[in-house]
């Protein structure tokens, strides 16, 4: 494995949907990739900046609503919509990060929770724009222009989302091995020391926050086009918690961690579907147990069992997921 692990993983991910024609399975794969994209972007905040954000689902929701509202009123091509979703979610990220990042620790977590709730509340009550709790339905499929290259099947969305996941994962990898990435890690580990070395800590954090929120916006736009319906529920506390769970259970500060976390989330919820309402109780219990007994996430098990052999695919691990 070693340094070829990422290539093997991507190859497997490309082949995976071809193994079956079961559309339900394809649907689960799309969900996995969408959540992977979100978890990876949240991981930038939790793993690299070192702060816990409870507002991430709101940026996902902003992206979804931007795509839905633009699709309803204009005939913009899908590509432009994705860019606008990223820009608008990123702009909100800038405004919110600018206020919230002045505070660190538990207060930051609560603040982002507050901001997430503001956006949720506004979405729920601004009926003229968002149709309130009813949500927006009949969103057009993602296309280059009009009906040209319109994506309809789950398999198509899987590959588009996979492309974004791979691109973003590579961007994270490249960032973390660059000078800027080391500045991020220095900021996370010891902010006063980092600023004494001439790193602008606040700017560093704001940059990470804006990138993370913009990517979450893209995820939201993809989600809206794929499911063709959005409701304010995508920003509810349940989703915010779910995203954090994926990053933490998978392993924060790593690239494989959030992707594994998303797989566990999607897989577990489907596997437990048979037990009905009990499944969320089981899920919450598993979360709590994994937080208490496995604070480094699933990825840390690999390290525990195989020692050094995992160094190559996860360079961001350095400094540890404390």
């Amino acid at each position, binding site marked *: 494995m070693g340094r070829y692990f990422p290539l093997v993983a991507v190859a497997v991910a490309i082949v995976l949907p071809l193994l079956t024609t079961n559309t339900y399975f394809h649907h689960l794969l799309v969900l996995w990739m969408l959540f992977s994209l979100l978890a990876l972007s949240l991981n930038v905040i939790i793993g690299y900046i070192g702060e816990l954000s409870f507002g991430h689902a709101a940026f996902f929701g902003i992206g979804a609503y931007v795509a839905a509202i633009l699709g309803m009123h204009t005939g913009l091509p899908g590509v432009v919509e994705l860019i606008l979703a990223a820009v608008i979610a990123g702009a909100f990220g800038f405004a919110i990060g600018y206020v919230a990042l*002045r505070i*660190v620790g538990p207060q930051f977590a609560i603040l982002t*929770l*507050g901001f997430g709730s503001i956006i949720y509340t506004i979405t729920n009550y601004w009926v003229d724009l968002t149709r309130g709790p009813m949500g927006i339905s009949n969103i057009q499929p993602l296309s280059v222009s009009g009906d040209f290259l319109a994506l309809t099947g789950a398999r198509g969305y899987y590959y588009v989302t996979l492309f974004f996941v791979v691109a973003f994962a590579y961007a994270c990898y490249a960032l973390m091995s660059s000078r800027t990435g080391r500045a991020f890690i220095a900021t996370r580990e010891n902010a006063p020391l980092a600023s004494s070395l001439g790193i602008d800590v606040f700017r560093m954090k704001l940059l990470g926050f804006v990138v993370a929120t913009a990517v979450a916006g893209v995820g939201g736009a993809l989600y809206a086009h794929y499911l063709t319906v959005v409701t304010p529920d995508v920003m509810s506390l349940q989703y915010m918690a779910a995203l954090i769970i994926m990053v933490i259970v998978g392993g924060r500060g790593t690239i494989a961690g959030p992707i594994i976390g998303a797989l566990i989330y999607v897989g577990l919820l489907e596997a437990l579907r048979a037990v009905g309402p009990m499944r969320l109780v089981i899920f919450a219990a598993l979360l709590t147990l994994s*937080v208490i007994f496995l604070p480094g996430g699933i990825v840390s098990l690999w390290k525990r069992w195989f020692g050094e052999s995992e160094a190559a695919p996860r360079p961001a691990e350095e400094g540890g997921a404390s």
Partner: protein
Amino acid sequence: MDTVVLAQQLTNGLVNGMTYVLIATGLTLVFGVLHIINFAHGEFYMLGAFFTYFAAKLLGLDYISAAVVATLGVAVLGILANRLFFWPLRREHEFTVLLSSLGLALLLTNGGELLFGADPKYVNSPFADNVVEVGQLVVTQQRVLIFGVGAVVLVLLYLFIKHTRVGKMMRATAQNPEGAALTGVNIRFVYTVTFVLACGLAALAGALVGPTAMIFPTVGSWAVLKGFIVVILGGLGSIPGALIGGLLLGVVESLAGGYISLGFAQAIGYAIIIGVLLWRPQGLFGTARRA
């Protein structure tokens, strides 16, 4: 502007504010003494309301006894929550503790939905339908009860923390846990007492507010959000901050709901936070680590 309507809105706001104060005081107590953000705090509020409902229904108690039983019952659950979810993690990173409490919150909400059912329930109270008239102001007895009990409990809490031995132990722990332990303070006991007080306060709020609104298992996430707004506004860990922040939020929401729109009132709490934080990032009475 009609002064009677204004006075009515102010009164309603103060009563709502008092429930926020009760919720936020427990939250701020746990943070101030133990430096724990308890996400599951709202769930104890929810349990307080449901325990009152079931104590009245299954045990056949009257409202007051049911509320007392519920409050004590949830306070005892606080011991359990501390023992299982907080005490074992006291040396871990603050994220771990925060996430553990998030897990507890999800567990209690979903467990509550499983046990109690998702459909809303009403807590019966003999005070809910009777009104008190002061001049042209009309207030239900239940609301007078909320405000009165809230005020009395807060005074008792203040005296407890200020003058009893256990209160002094709590204050010592808040200042410096290691130092307190060195001088013979039983930290484990302080953890237990703090959670018993916090959960009891949340449950009391639930038992009092139950008769004025529908109760359902997800009501806890609403309560904890209000609690967080109040503590951010007043300053995390500050009890005077919780008192003033809670009353302020109640009054502002009531005025915004009465004069602007109900939907807007929901968002205004958050808008206040942003304004306060731009000006004073540590809250009105608190201290915060700044980036």
